[in-house]
């Protein structure tokens, strides 16, 4: 944030002073009107000088009312019957019938009320802008062999930016030199710093905490992840939630009804003040302001915690969630599959791994990648040092010591993927089949008893076991495991605590799924699902639940779309995930899910409270006015009080 003297040339200063004056005009006008009002009232009460008192009170009404009347004029010019027109009418009416005290009071109270409303709304409006201000204004760029300081938005894509330790990163980019811990809280909401080294992505506005980094720019200025997030959040804040739309529709009928009521009351009683009072206090201020303030505050709070909610609508739906479905791989687990054991049956274990790697070499499946990586690691370290511990519980051969492992993994001559089952490859005229039981049955490969027992054992531990067959005969089994995220059991427990059912969806077989489900403590699981089956499962749950689906946003896009609320994880930097989800978690942080659901529930309550306050206030005031208990000034006090109350109540969500 600049102070205005930072960048304003001196010849423009008077103009700027005018602006500063205008900015505080409302406060000054309100204060002056209040002082005059208090003065006029005291003069009347203490000295009994009626004429002086009336003069001062009228002055108070004029000082406070000038701006209101001007805004009322603009309302009329745009053919709106707004509160400012009504307040002006009421004040003028009060003066005409000699109620000077009422006139001064209504103007002062309205002026004070709208000043406070403007100020508090400014707080909700600037909550997001504060995030943007975290991006530094300048960047150190390598240009023509020198490091120069330039405005951050003028850094070109591809240029290398130097980020000193302790400094904010000015652009989005990829680390090309150096190593450091970066605090990504402004983007992801995670307070723990993330380790960054060559090839890692970094985001503008995050803080480089340790070493110097050199970053090749991928986006600067308005083309950064943070800027995109803020634009999306603003768009979300600007869309109306179902309650807001409902309230707006209601207001379009309600306002004319109040006018009819006021005119009717005037016609019957011939009491002009009564009619004007009804118009002023009948304004649905708190009703139309309450729901949007709640939603804007909640969406802003979520954004600052690394949760992008794409609209008030999703916030309201998320508050009703009673079932959360998790995709297993990459969501409940880390999505980093590693080989945990290789068992040879009549063949050396290293040879089994090598054969599996040949078959999987061209596959893009994550299990295939893990097998190829394991085979390569073993080849590079033929002394038997392993990246993963190999535990065998007795078989015909074990993996140690690795002798045949040093042979390279050749490309297969032929290669076919059997979706959901495995791969079939050919090398030097021999056929290698790597896959699950279903694939072996398809290929009519017999599974001997000891192999089946071994596979079962592995699966009951939550591992995925893949058979390796050579020329129609099983030679071994590769076991793989994708570690659970540490947070998963706690998050599932927190959801149960909140009365939410949890379900895991996975393509894994029944036994592996059950073992993982038990480990996480999840209520239910669906195993052996293809992507289309996941979508069908979600649709089935929706018959009697409000369902959230948590996935990575790319592979799970159809099931995210099928759910009432689709939640994508780890969305920072992947626009596709943000596109497909209703709620995007910037970090790979499961713990944001109970938070997001809690916040949504709090928002639903908050909106309901605000609607209740507004409706009760108006009902109470209308009754009071019609029963001659409430008069203009008192009615205005309660009316403005109710508007402030709903704004302050909504703003509590900023601190949820």
């Amino acid at each position: 944030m600049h102070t205005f003297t930072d960048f304003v040339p001196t010849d423009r200063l008077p103009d700027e002073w005018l602006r500063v004056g205008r900015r505080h005009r409302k406060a000054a006008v309100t204060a002056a009107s209040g002082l005059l009002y208090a003065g006029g009232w005291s003069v009347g009460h203490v000295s009994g000088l009626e004429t002086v008192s009336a003069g001062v009170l009228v002055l108070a009404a004029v000082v406070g009312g000038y701006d209101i009347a001007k805004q009322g004029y603009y309302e009329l010019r745009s053919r709106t019957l707004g509160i400012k027109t009504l307040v002006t009418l009421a004040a003028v009416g009060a003066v005409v019938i000699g109620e000077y005290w009422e006139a001064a009071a209504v103007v002062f109270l309205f002026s004070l009320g709208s000043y406070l409303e403007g100020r508090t709304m400014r707080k909700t409006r600037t909550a997001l802008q504060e995030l943007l201000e975290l991006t530094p204004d300048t960047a150190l760029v390598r240009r023509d062999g020198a490091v120069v300081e330039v405005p951050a938005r003028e850094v070109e894509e591809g240029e290398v930016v130097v980020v000193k330790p302790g400094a904010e990163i000015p652009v989005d980019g990829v680390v090309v030199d150096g190593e450091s811990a970066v605090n990504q809280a402004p983007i992801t909401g995670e307070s723990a710093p993330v380790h960054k080294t060559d090839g890692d992505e970094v985001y503008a506005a995050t803080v480089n905490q340790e070493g110097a980094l050199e970053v090749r720019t991928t986006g600067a200025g308005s083309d950064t992840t943070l800027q995109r997030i803020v634009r999306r959040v603003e768009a979300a804040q600007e869309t109306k939630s179902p309650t807001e739309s409902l309230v707006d529709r209601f207001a379009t009928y309600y306002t004319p009804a109040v006018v009819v009521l006021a005119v009717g009351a005037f016609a019957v009683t011939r009491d002009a003040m009564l009619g004007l009072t009804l118009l002023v206090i009948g304004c649905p201020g708190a009703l139309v302001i309450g729901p949007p303030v709640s939603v804007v505050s909640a969406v802003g709070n979520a954004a600052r915690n690394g949760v992008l909610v794409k609209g008030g609508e999703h916030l309201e739906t998320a508050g009703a969630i009673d079932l959360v479905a998790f995709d297993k791989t990459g969501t409940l687990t880390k999505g980093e599959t590693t080989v945990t054991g290789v068992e040879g049956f009549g063949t050396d274990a290293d040879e089994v791994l090598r054969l599996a790697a040949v078959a999987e070499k061209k596959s893009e499946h994550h299990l295939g990648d893990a097998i190829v990586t394991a085979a390569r690691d073993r080849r590079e370290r033929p002394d038997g040092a392993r990246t993963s511990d190999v535990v065998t519980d007795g078989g015909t051969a074990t993996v140690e010591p690795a002798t045949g492992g040093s042979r390279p993994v050749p490309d297969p001559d032929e290669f076919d993927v059997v979706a959901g089952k495995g791969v079939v490859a050919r090398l030097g005229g021999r056929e290698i089949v790597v896959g699950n039981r279903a694939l072996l049955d398809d290929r009519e490969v017999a599974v001997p008893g000891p192999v089946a027992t071994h596979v079962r054992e592995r699966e009951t531990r939550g591992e995925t076991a893949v058979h390796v067959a050579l020329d129609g005969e099983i030679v071994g089994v590769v076991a793989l495991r994708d570690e659970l995220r540490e947070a998963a059991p706690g998050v599932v427990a927190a959801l149960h605590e909140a009365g939410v059912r949890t379900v895991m969806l996975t393509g894994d077989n029944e036994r592996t799924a059950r073992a993982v489900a038990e480990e996480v403590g999840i209520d239910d699981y669906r195993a052996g699902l293809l992507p289309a089956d996941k979508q069908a499962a979600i649709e089935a749950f929706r018959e009697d639940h409000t369902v959230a689906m948590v996935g990575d946003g790319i592979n799970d896009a159809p099931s995210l779309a099928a759910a009432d609320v689709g939640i994508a994880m780890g969305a920072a930097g992947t626009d596709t995930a943000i596109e497909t989800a209703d709620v995007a978690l910037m970090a790979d942080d499961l713990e944001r899910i109970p938070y997001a659901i809690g916040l949504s529930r709090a928002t639903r309550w908050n909106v309901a409270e605000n609607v209740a306050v507004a409706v009760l206030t108006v009902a109470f005031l209308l009754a009071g006015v019609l029963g001659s208990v409430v008069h203009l000034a008192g009615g205005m006090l309660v009316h403005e009080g109710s508007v402030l109350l709903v704004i302050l109540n909504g703003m509590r969500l900023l601190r949820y």
Partner: protein
Amino acid sequence: MTETTQLRVMDFDCPTCASTVERAIRSAEGVADVEVHYTTGRIEVTYDERVTGPAAFEQTIENQGYTPQTA
């Protein structure tokens, strides 16, 4: 040529005030489209730059008693 600019008003005190500003800007010559958002205070104007410009919009906003900021 059609241009789009963005302004901010942080001190709107009621939703109607935002609609009033919106109507006032829309009625000006050369303005093709305008959106004023009460909740965020964001104003987006699409206009013909040969006819009008941001200074005119700021003037309209100031006339109505609000403080425009460029953003």
